[in-house]
């Protein structure tokens, strides 16, 4: 069965051709390759008569080497409720319990800081936790987390100067005045991350966008939903900059809308 054995019907070529091709290859695979030859073999191929190569529809560019790995930060969703431990290993001290969902209904995420194997060879991941006391880190089994997301951004909130600055690959790309916690309910300092983003809710107090962070008010521990620190807009822009909130970080609405376009969930947040 060769292609040249007879005219192919174009209408069935797609299907039959495949079968013929397969059969042709099959025949060649097992046989000695000579039984099918007929007549005197032709002389060598005439290279000059062959068509020129078809110009490809696309040509990939130069290899893209990875640059600036250091400015990447990692996050991962919590796949199922898990107890974070003080060290890699099931018998290490429990530090906190992690839920798979946030109070806002989004997937709970953690900032990924590192990894290590325990004595039994199981992979554990060191994560920053959204619990009190602020700054708590712990270890969870790798399989309790989902995939890794990465961001190149970092937000720095300066409680002294009352500013928020977003860096991308180490360069400042956004800056704004902020309102922060009153002396009685201070905004906590330390290393945190953006946990989720809320939009299109009906509550003018928070402005058009509210980011949830892993930071928690150390004073308002019985606040509904845990007293998490948000980064959000405001209906009182005249108070900014200032020490005016219960711990949240308030921005003017046009600023928070600008930040929304620049800052993905998972971005590390430094409050100092």
């Amino acid at each position, binding site marked *: 069965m060769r292609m040249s054995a007879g005219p192919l019907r174009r209408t069935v070529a797609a299907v039959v051709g495949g079968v013929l091709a397969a059969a042709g290859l099959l025949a060649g695979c097992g046989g000695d390759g000579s039984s099918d030859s007929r007549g005197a073999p032709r002389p060598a191929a005439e290279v000059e008569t062959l068509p020129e190569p078809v110009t490809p529809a696309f040509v*990939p560019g130069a290899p893209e080497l*990875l640059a600036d790995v250091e400015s990447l930060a990692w996050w991962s969703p919590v796949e199922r409720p898990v107890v974070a431990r003080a060290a890699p290993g099931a018998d290490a001290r429990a530090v906190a319990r992690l839920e798979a969902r946030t109070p806002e209904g989004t997937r709970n995420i953690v900032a990924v800081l590192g990894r290590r194997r325990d004595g039994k060879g199981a992979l554990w991941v060191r994560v920053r936790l959204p619990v009190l006391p602020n700054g708590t880190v712990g270890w969870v089994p790798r399989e309790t987390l*989902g995939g890794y997301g990465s961001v190149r951004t970092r937000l720095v909130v300066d409680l002294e100067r009352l500013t928020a600055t977003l860096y991308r690959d180490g360069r400042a790309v956004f800056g704004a005045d902020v309102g922060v916690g009153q002396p009685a309910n201070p905004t906590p300092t330390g290393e945190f991350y953006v946990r989720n983003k809320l939009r299109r809710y009906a509550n003018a107090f928070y402005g058009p966008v509210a980011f949830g962070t892993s930071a928690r008010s150390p004073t308002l521990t019985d606040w509904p939903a845990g007293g998490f620190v948000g980064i959000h807009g405001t209906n009182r822009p005249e108070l900014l900059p200032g020490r005016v909130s219960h711990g949240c970080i308030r921005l003017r609405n046009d600023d928070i809308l600008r930040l929304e376009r620049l800052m993905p969930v998972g971005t590390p947040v430094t409050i100092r």
Partner: protein
Amino acid sequence: MPTEHPTPIIAELDRDGAIEEALAAAGGTTRRGFLAAALAGAGALAGFPETADAARGPKRDTAILNYALVFEYLQAGFYTEAESIGTIRAMGAERETWARTLGAHERAHVTILKDVLGRKAVARPFFDYRGVTEDGDAFTRTAVAMEDLTVALLAGQAPRVSDRSLRAAFFSLLTVEARHAAWARRITGFRPVAAAFDEPKTLAAVDRVVRSTRFLVSRPSRESRRSPRFTG
């Protein structure tokens, strides 16, 4: 996602077993014979169920390109993650050169396929490499499996692409992926070329392997319309 690649269902497979399956295929222990390969190739032309209604032509070309793009995303993400978190750096100079080169190629493939597809390009999916990018050995063995699978995918799809300039481009990608596969195999101690013929795989067959790895997952929800209850 393209219609040819519905949102993957997270199969109830044993995690290690699933990865072992993909790796065994790479190692040659469960590699099917050429007979089966040729029949599979014929099956591809006879009609992969999800594309039987899509005739040879620009629409199918777009779908095939998009599937190739998903695959390049999968590979690029794999190498990028392993390099970014330091796994590749810890593997020694020879493997580091190899893995960094492959990552650089796969990222270039993503870029060009997105360019070519323009607005039709599928968005980058979310991947969970399930610890494989965090372990030098698991990473290398999975890379072998992935590169071999890419070869089988492109070899299977090249005849199905109807535009000839696209087909020419597919051939240039196919041979590079085959170089990757051979290089990966030699580094891991496998023979770089397992057989005289690479077994083309249908989209359905490739899809089964990809699903068995469970690397492709749905993007975690990080946004909500609920009213904030932050401290304010």
